[in-house]
């Protein structure tokens, strides 16, 4: 039988605030263990958590960007469970009254758009970090670090709207892209900026009822999401095709062996005994606040892509690549402000600039070539001062030194030779030095034109205008 995959995702995203959600400890990543703790996030008795306004505002941004309804009143609740990474014995989260509900995002697959529903977005605090260090020589103990405890998170719960692993991948990437545009999440997966839980089930194609679902936890990278989903789909297909039935259960993901495995029921008893958090007062988000946040929202990737196509007349593919990351899109537009051909600048950004950024592991802001200088380089080519080939050399020099393109061209004497007389002289030289080739060319081997062009370029160190060289060669040989 043919089965259809049904996937829903819960995404936990760290909000890029400076301080934690309920106390003034820093959220800076990579500090010494247990350097960022205070009585509140350590769960000392008698302390009072106070909500970080910025965390609420970041969550509102995401709710607006995903078309959610923002609750006029939301509350926090205690989710009670014991785990060594949770000093208080409960996590402050939202339960019955989340911040936002009922939105969607749009993913695009093979040019076809699809809406993925967002059930809800709520605020909560992160747990601490457990380290299982081999160096410690400990076998019966783990190590606990409080630094991450209380870092603000939003949990974004999707509808079970994804029908393939690829759709799930695109959904995760889209969320990351939107959050990075909104400036609310670093998108830095290595630092745990996004973590995932997936619900996977299969059903006979055409059926409208959902099959029994399996929940996969502990997915800390895009790769883990992909591999675990692929694994689960295969595992469940095999069971169903063998006439078996799927057991509703919670699975873990083993990153090393790349398999899902059942987690012990006892540790994950889904009995969190939620109750309203008495230490925190309700949050009322009024129209005025929402309008203020809305007015400060940046242009989102989909809208920006559309505008790039219509305003700059570049192909959809270019617009997609250029708007993938906000910083790249900003870089591109800044270059255009100087006044350069949009498609030519796009080619440079999509090719050489992105390649260098990646190779050097730097952001556009840290890059040695400013958008203004890139535009000037593009203009040096379009006004004929240098050839496209020389431009690559100048680009390399700019990457290394951060220099100004026109200065590099002048200092290194790279200005294109457009003086017909000068080129004719070089062409004469080349032809007299290669009488055999000239003979063969005239005998019909016209492919040799490339050879002559190459020789002329060699003698002029690549500075001769290629169009003129071709023209003059053809005349002399013909």
């Amino acid at each position, binding site marked *: 039988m043919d089965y259809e995959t049904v996937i829903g995702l819960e995404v936990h995203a760290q909000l890029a*605030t*400076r*301080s934690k959600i309920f*106390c*003034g*400890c*820093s959220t800076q990543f990579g500090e*010494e*263990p*247990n*350097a*960022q*703790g*205070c*009585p509140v996030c*350590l769960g000392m008795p008698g302390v009072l958590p*106070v*909500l*970080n*306004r*910025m*965390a*609420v505002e970041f969550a509102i941004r995401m709710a607006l960007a995903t078309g959610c309804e923002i609750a006029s*009143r939301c*509350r926090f609740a205690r989710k*009670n*469970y*014991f*785990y*060594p990474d949770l000093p208080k014995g409960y996590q402050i989260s939202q339960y019955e009254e989340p911040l936002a509900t009922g939105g969607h995002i749009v993913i695009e697959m093979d040019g076809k758009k699809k809406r993925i529903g967002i059930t809800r977005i709520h605020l909560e605090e992160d747990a601490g970090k*457990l*380290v*299982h260090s081999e160096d*410690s020589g*400990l*076998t*019966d*103990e*783990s*190590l*606990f*670090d*409080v630094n991450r405890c209380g870092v603000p998170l939003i949990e974004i719960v999707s509808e079970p709207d994804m029908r393939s692993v690829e759709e799930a991948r695109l959904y995760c990437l889209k969320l990351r892209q939107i959050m990075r545009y909104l400036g609310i999440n670093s998108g830095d997966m290595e630092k745990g900026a996004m973590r995932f839980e997936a619900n996977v089930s299969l059903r006979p194609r055409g059926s409208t009822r959902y099959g029994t679902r399996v929940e996969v936890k*502990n997915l800390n990278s895009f790769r883990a999401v992909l591999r675990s989903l692929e694994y689960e789909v295969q595992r469940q297909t095999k069971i169903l095709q063998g006439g078996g039935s799927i057991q509703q259960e919670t699975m*873990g993901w083993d990153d090393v062996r790349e398999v899902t495995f059942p*987690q*012990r029921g*006892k*540790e994950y*008893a889904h*009995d969190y*005994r939620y109750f*309203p*958090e*008495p230490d*925190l*007062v*309700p*949050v*009322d988000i009024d129209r005025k606040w929402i309008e203020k946040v809305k007015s400060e929202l940046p242009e989102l990737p989909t809208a920006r892509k559309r505008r790039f196509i219509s305003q700059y007349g570049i192909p959809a593919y270019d617009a997609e690549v250029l708007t993938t990351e906000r910083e790249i899109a900003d870089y591109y537009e800044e270059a255009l402000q100087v006044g350069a051909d949009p498609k030519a600048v796009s080619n440079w950004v999509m090719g050489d600039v992105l390649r260098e950024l990646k190779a050097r592991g730097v952001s556009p802001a840290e890059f040695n070539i400013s958008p203004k200088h890139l535009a000037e380089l593009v203009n040096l080519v379009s006004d004929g001062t240098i050839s496209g080939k020389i431009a690559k050399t100048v680009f390399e020099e700019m990457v290394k030194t951060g220099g100004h393109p026109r200065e590099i061209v002048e200092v290194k004497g790279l200005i294109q030779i457009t003086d017909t007389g000068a080129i004719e002289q070089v062409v004469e030289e080349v032809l007299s030095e290669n009488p055999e080739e000239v003979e063969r060319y005239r005998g019909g081997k016209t492919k040799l034109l490339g050879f002559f062009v190459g020789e002329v370029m060699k003698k002029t160190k690549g500075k001769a205008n290629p169009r003129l060289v071709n023209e003059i060669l053809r005349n002399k040989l013909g």
Partner: protein
Amino acid sequence: MPVTLKDVENIAMLAKLRFTQEEKERLISQLSRILSYFEKLNELDTTDVEPTSHVLPIKNVFRDDVVTGSLPRDQILANAPDQWMGYFKVPKVIE
């Protein structure tokens, strides 16, 4: 609402507490009494009363997103029963 032995054992398990048979029996009767008191409260008509999640009529208490600092590490770890290289030592959880 009668509380059963199973309820007590389940709550004890979630709270990571261990009880003797005698204690369990006592808890059954104590918890039953507490619940029947709430049954009594349930007799009140609360149709138009908003559930209380907080005793004070206040809302929107925020702090600005400002780092105000943390405790020195030795104080953070002061209550740790055991520690290693700046970490708390905690029981290993097998997944």
